[in-house]
């Protein structure tokens, strides 16, 4: 097992490192929250990090020849390869360090993927990576809820009913995407009991996200973080509302923020307040009606959407996380 870095938890936004690892040169849309996710991710991880990124907006729009925004070593990997890329990078380093072919020092390995690349295509590779306890690596899935780069198509992580170029509301079929968003982080946590850290996050809560990255990189072994990223182009809203929409996703209880560290589940921020009854969930209408991708939803559709979210909080064994019915008292 290779060494891990000393990356202490950050107390207070002002203590987030000033040093940037993701700078100018990228070409993402105005208000692209995924770009902010990248920036915060590498701020938290620091310069002794290798980042590998799957095909998607965070490659194509992000990393252009001669204008790369990456200050740290960065490499592209294939759409479904984040798991294998992380494994290969970590294994290469581990092998050479063990054999004395390379200086033995802690180097962070982060592979990121979009929801299309991770939640759909790359799931088997991520699962396999999470089985290798001997490698320190982090797989970060930035979820903009569509195959954004190819012009916004539904993925297994898109919300029910969302308008996309593969699920346009039509005259006969108003709801073309009838799939409910995959519950990815709990699936990976439950399926890989050896994994010491799985978390969900949102760049609207930058400090929480920073500290999750740091815990993932220092706890040892393979880890996974799933981040929700509002995408003005795909979700169809004014770019200035990205931050607010990230917050609304959490405040409505649609996106639940938590970490599972060594088997212990802890909700954070508004999710925690909702769980403990300190605050109540906002109506999903507040979130859905701010986005053009849901403009075609009827009152009935919105009620249905709300009922599914209610169910996940009121009837699930671990509210918002584990979708088994609560056992009888």
């Amino acid at each position, binding site marked *: 097992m290779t060494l891990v870095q000393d990356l202490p938890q950050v107390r207070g936004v002002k203590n987030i490192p000033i040093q940037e690892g993701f700078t100018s040169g990228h070409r993402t849309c105005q208000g692209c929250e995924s770009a902010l996710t990248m920036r915060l991710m590498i701020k938290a991880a620091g*310069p*002794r*990090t*290798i980042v*590998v990124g799957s095909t998607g907006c965070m*490659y*194509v729009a992000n*990393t*252009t*020849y*001669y204008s*790369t925004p*990456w*200050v*740290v*070593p*960065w*490499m*592209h*990997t*294939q759409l*479904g*390869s984040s*798991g*294998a*890329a*992380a*494994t*290969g*990078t970590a*294994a*290469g*380093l*581990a*092998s*050479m360090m*063990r*054999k004395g*072919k*390379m200086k033995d020092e802690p*180097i962070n390995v982060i592979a990121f993927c979009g929801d299309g690349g991770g939640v759909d295509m790359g799931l*088997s*590779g991520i*699962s*396999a990576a999470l089985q*290798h306890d001997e490698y320190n690596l982090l797989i970060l899935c930035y979820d903009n809820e569509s195959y954004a780069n190819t012009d916004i198509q539904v993925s297994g992580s898109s919300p029910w009913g969302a308008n996309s170029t593969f699920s346009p509301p039509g005259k006969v079929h108003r709801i073309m995407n009838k799939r409910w968003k995959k519950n990815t982080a709990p699936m990976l946590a439950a399926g890989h009991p050896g994994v010491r850290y799985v978390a969900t996050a949102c760049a609207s809560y930058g400090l929480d996200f920073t500290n999750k990255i740091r815990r993932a990189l220092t706890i040892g072994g393979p880890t996974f973080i799933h981040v929700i990223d509002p995408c003005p182009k795909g979700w169809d809203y004014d770019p200035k509302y990205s931050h607010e929409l990230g917050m609304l996703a959490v405040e409505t209880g649609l996106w639940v923020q938590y970490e599972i560290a060594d088997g212990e589940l802890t909700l954070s921020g508004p999710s925690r307040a909702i769980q403990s009854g300190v605050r109540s969930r906002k109506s999903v209408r507040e979130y859905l009606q701010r986005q053009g991708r849901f403009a075609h939803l009827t009152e009935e559709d919105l009620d249905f959407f709300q009922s599914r979210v209610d169910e996940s909080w009121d009837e699930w064994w671990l509210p918002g996380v584990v979708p088994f019915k609560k056992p009888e008292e």
Partner: protein
Amino acid sequence: MTTVEEQLFMTEKEELISGSEAVAIACALADVDVITAYPIRPYDTVMQYVSQLKANGAFDCDFIVAESEHSQFEIVKHASSVGARTFCGSSGVGWFYAFEAIAVTAGLRLPVVAMVGNRALDDPGAFGVEHNDALAVRDLGWMLYWVATAQEALDMALMAWRIAEDSRAFLPMALSCDGSFLTHSQAIVNVPTQEQVNKFLPSYDRGRLQLHPDNPITVAPQVNEDWLMEIRRQSNEAMTRTPGVIKEVYEEFKQVFGRGDPSPFIEEYMMDDDPDIVLMGMGTLALPVRVAIRRMREQGKKVGFVRLKFFRPFATEEVQQALGGAKAVAVVDRDYSFGSPSFGGVLFNEVRAALYPLEKRPHVVNFIAGLGGREVRVRDVEDMVEITQKAIDTGKIEQECNWIGVRE
């Protein structure tokens, strides 16, 4: 105290091993850092031997059983990018499952070495050898070598890392080994010592292309039409440099290990008297062909054989020299290329293209044989020669592509 590894490779010895075992031993001798496996017959025997070597402490490597061939090839690709020596492999549809990763490995100029245990592509299912799996990457920047014996498998594997990792090349290389005939057949192999190998094979140095925090480069950014053509051109230039690298490495190998053919690209058999008919093929086909030629020679027929070893880079000049003087060339394909010129095989059309610039061109007749592992018998080879002789006698080729040993 000596380690198991030292004991194992301290003295040169002869061992009765299969082609797969020979490649596994080469992996240990080359001190490969990361090896990935996924089961598919017949290549996977190499990984069984690798895992045994590791389990017994004879080989220190990160041996990763991937969850698919795609991941298998992606893992070594990324390990190679941080400077690790790598090995991987597959067969048939497994090789195709990894195709995306295989393509980008060449695009990224990463010197991954792979073994293809040649196998027919499903459907319908068949375990036996066909060359279409490995041949599918022929346009992508992989060097492709066809092995004929277990000894050659071991030797070429050692050379493969040296050639692929030469910064003038930095291209991946695949060793094609005929399923069963080579992967599973045992032969006496001379296993060199660790000392000899260390003398021959330097460690892999990715240099300024190594992905590391001390060298914070960006690898494979989006280039689009602005730069893609220049980058393709660079890959092509690398491939055009490989024949020189190969020759150099081959000569040095012969010096250190004391064995090898005159040419690394082709092997000539009974070619000294410029025979009228020259057979050409790849891999273990050499065995029945040699027997048939000896028999026909006894009957006074002037027939020779050229075994093509490197399919990529294709040694155009050597092939021209070897075949240009013949009256007719019989190309034996253990593959097919449906709908290709003359509806022939892949090798056939490549050889024809290579001979085209010659002023005096031999007739080139094609034979599709031994698909799916069907045995190519001595009498099949005799049939091929008979058909080829007819072209010489009549001055024209009646049928350019002939399927041999097939039920009508």
